[in-house]
């Protein structure tokens, strides 16, 4: 089986199929591929025979695929033609002109053409052409336009995306179950999700690992996140919420319909659900609504050494450990200790001696804007929220206010009006 160099799918369509002695058998109508590998194999050609029937010419029967014709190994009478089966994937019918997810550019884009190439003994689909050149080729204008541009010594750039960087979607299902999307940065995943239709959003989201899904969910605009969570099955939703910090989970749950929110809170771990309920009492656009209740407090009379030991024990599960909060026995905030201070101090010092006592705090009612201003004024990574009695309620971290200062990319993409 020989492939004449690299070819595009559209170049194959309509060319004649002949046998060894150039006897005409029919015309190529479409190309059938076998899924399952990152570069899918071409399994055969759908041809229209001279009698007008649609038949499948399997790849094993083919001797040469050229630019002008396809030839078979055996003479015409002996060529075995198979009948079409349901569920075959065809390039022109199922992929060209449809949308795919380009994992490199984190975007959803339409396929203009597909590139085939020979790899070892097989012909495989290696790339999607999403550029102008592919479109011109389909319209039969490639030569003309290239001639015109060559006069000006310019060339239109090819824009190909390797098929291993593509996720092909069909009707709300992910056609190629691959791990690739999960390998992306959550922000990119969010950007892709925001460009898809609801059913596809749900499909992609359900296929992600809980941790990735949780991070991507935080990157999405809240309303969109809520829509996705109400569409995926409850078990998955719980898994994802479990992996989210309390404040982010509260943001999502706060945007859900009453019954759905209740159902999820009932099924969650009691401790976490309690914290979320606590946070939901605060107004959305205030420090209370932004804060998380996951922070680490230490009593004043601990030594540096003991503190570090305790940190090692609890830190892996904590969201933020840049600052440690030192409290007295009534849980009033007495001081703040940066991780740096702790590490450079002698092991036997008490933490009450090295903590900072003039620190900035927020009140739960403080508006989002003021909160963000405090962060930028003092260049802080996290600020504690305290009540009137100076009891610590939670902390607001920089990543919660960054979104206020600079909206996340995925949020700008497709805005819902609510």
């Amino acid at each position: 089986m020989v492939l004449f160099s690299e070819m595009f799918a559209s170049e194959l369509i309509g060319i004649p199929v002949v046998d060894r002695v150039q006897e005409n058998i029919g015309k190529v109508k479409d190309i059938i591929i076998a899924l399952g590998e990152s570069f899918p194999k071409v399994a055969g050609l759908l041809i229209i025979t001279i009698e007008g029937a649609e038949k499948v010419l399997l790849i094993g029967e083919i001797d040469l695929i050229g630019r002008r014709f396809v030839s078979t190994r055996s003479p015409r009478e002996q060529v075995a033609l198979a009948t079409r089966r349901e569920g075959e994937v065809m390039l022109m019918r199922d992929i060209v002109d449809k949308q795919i997810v380009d994992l490199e550019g984190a975007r959803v884009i339409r396929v203009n053409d597909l590139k085939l190439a020979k790899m070892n003994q097989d012909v495989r689909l290696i790339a999607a052409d999403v550029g102008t050149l592919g479109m011109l080729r389909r319209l039969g204008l490639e030569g003309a336009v290239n001639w015109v541009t060559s006069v000006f010594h310019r060339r239109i750039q090819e824009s190909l995306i390797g098929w291993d960087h593509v996720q092909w979607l069909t009707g709300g299902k992910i056609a190629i179950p691959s791990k690739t999307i999960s390998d992306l940065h959550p922000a990119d995943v969010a950007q892709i999700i925001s460009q898809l239709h609801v059913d596809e959003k749900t499909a992609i989201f359900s296929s992600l690992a809980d941790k990735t899904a949780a991070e991507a969910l935080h990157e999405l605009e809240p309303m969109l996140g809520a829509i996705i969570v109400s569409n995926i099955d409850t078990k998955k939703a719980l898994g994802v919420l479990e992996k989210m910090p309390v404040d982010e989970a509260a943001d999502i749950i706060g945007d859900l319909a009453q019954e759905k929110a209740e159902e999820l809170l009932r099924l969650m771990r009691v401790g976490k659900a309690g914290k979320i309920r606590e946070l939901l009492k605060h107004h959305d656009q205030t420090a209370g609504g932004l804060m998380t209740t996951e922070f680490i407090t230490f009593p004043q009379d601990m030594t540096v050494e003991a503190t570090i030991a305790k940190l090692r024990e609890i830190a892996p599960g904590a969201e933020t450990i840049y600052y440690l909060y030192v409290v007295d026995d009534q849980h009033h905030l007495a001081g703040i200790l940066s991780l740096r201070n702790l590490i450079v101090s002698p092991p036997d010092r008490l933490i009450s001696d090295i903590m900072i006592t003039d620190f900035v705090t927020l009140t739960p009612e403080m508006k989002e804007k003021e909160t963000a201003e405090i962060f930028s004024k003092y260049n802080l990574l996290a600020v504690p929220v305290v009540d009137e009695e100076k009891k610590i309620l939670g902390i607001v971290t920089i990543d919660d206010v960054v979104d206020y200062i600079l909206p996340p990319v995925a949020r700008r993409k497709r805005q819902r009006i609510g």
Partner: protein
Amino acid sequence: MLRYWWIRGIIFLSVIGPGIITGTADNDAGGVATYSIVGAHFGYRMLWILILITIMLYVTQEMGMRLGVVTGKGLADLIREKLGLKSALILISLVFLANFSNVLADVAGIASVADIYGLPRYIFVPIFSVLIYYIIVKGSFNLVQNIFLTSCILFFGYIINGFLARPDIPAMVRGSFVPYLPLNREYIFTATALIGTTLTVWGQFFVQSYFVDKGVTKKHLKNARLDVIFGAIWTDLVAYFIIISCAATLYVKGVRIESAIDAARALGPLLGDFAKHLFAWGLLNASILGVCVISMGTAYAITEVLGTERKVNSSYRDAPLFYLIIGFCIFVCTFLVLLPQLPIMFILVASQALNTIILPIIFVVILRLINDKKMMGNHVNSSLFNAIAWLTIVCFTVISLIMLYLTFF
């Protein structure tokens, strides 16, 4: 359930817009001109056709809405997936021609408002073109939509005019419910223009893409349907009042008019200057909305077929082609309108004719798409809906053939 009435109100507001905006924009400069002529030349006798138009408009716009909400794709997206690149491009080129001539007519509408107040066109029209483009490019999705909705409300001016004109109520009621179809050339020609100005090619593309861009989901189909119903009724209510205000004044006096601005001029002496201003400002508003919506609809259609990114809500950098097409439509039309000796009447008639030729093709494609079980699941048309839709197409096709015949022979 009453406890939640306000929540439901908010949900309704969150899907409101596309249907109303598309419908209202159907009453653009060409529309207002047609309604004025209908009222001035035939009195109340064509009002019954408006009821038919309302039904047709609802049926066609609702199908567009449903396609958009269920598939999450615009009409041009679906056409490319269904028909392939070549056919889609040919169809879209025709759509572009039809839309472009529509935008041209609307820019000419802005120019004629300048004329009525004796303001220089060369300053008046470019100011508005730049302003429109600036708002579309710089404005957020919400801002653009709120401006559109405000513009829709401004059409009230025409309704006030209808009351000022003191129509002859018995004749009005008779005209609304008793079909009257004389076989004379002028009546039939005007009647076809009346239908052709409300059901539009760009409207089909725009309504679907706009629902998609707005992110309305299947859960809100009911509310989206209400939006489309409101849109259809509001559109034809405005049309109704334009017709009766011209019927009660110009028709009674036997005034013949050529355009909307003629109507405004003629209304002045009969109803006073207030009516004239209402009519002129209404025309300005209608033209501006038309320019915005039609150029945006065109940009949606082309970028969808080419498969590039497009969204009102993305910046210029993210969707350059989208904004380039809008800019092209607005500024080339502005330039053309400012040329002396532009045969504007010919362009108007040509754009109407083009619209009536392409629309049946688009309707057939829409019906094929909406009855595709694999894509639409249980949201395919009911048999009643299909019957009405086919009836609309057949009516429309017959009408457009008659219209073409009358235009050229």
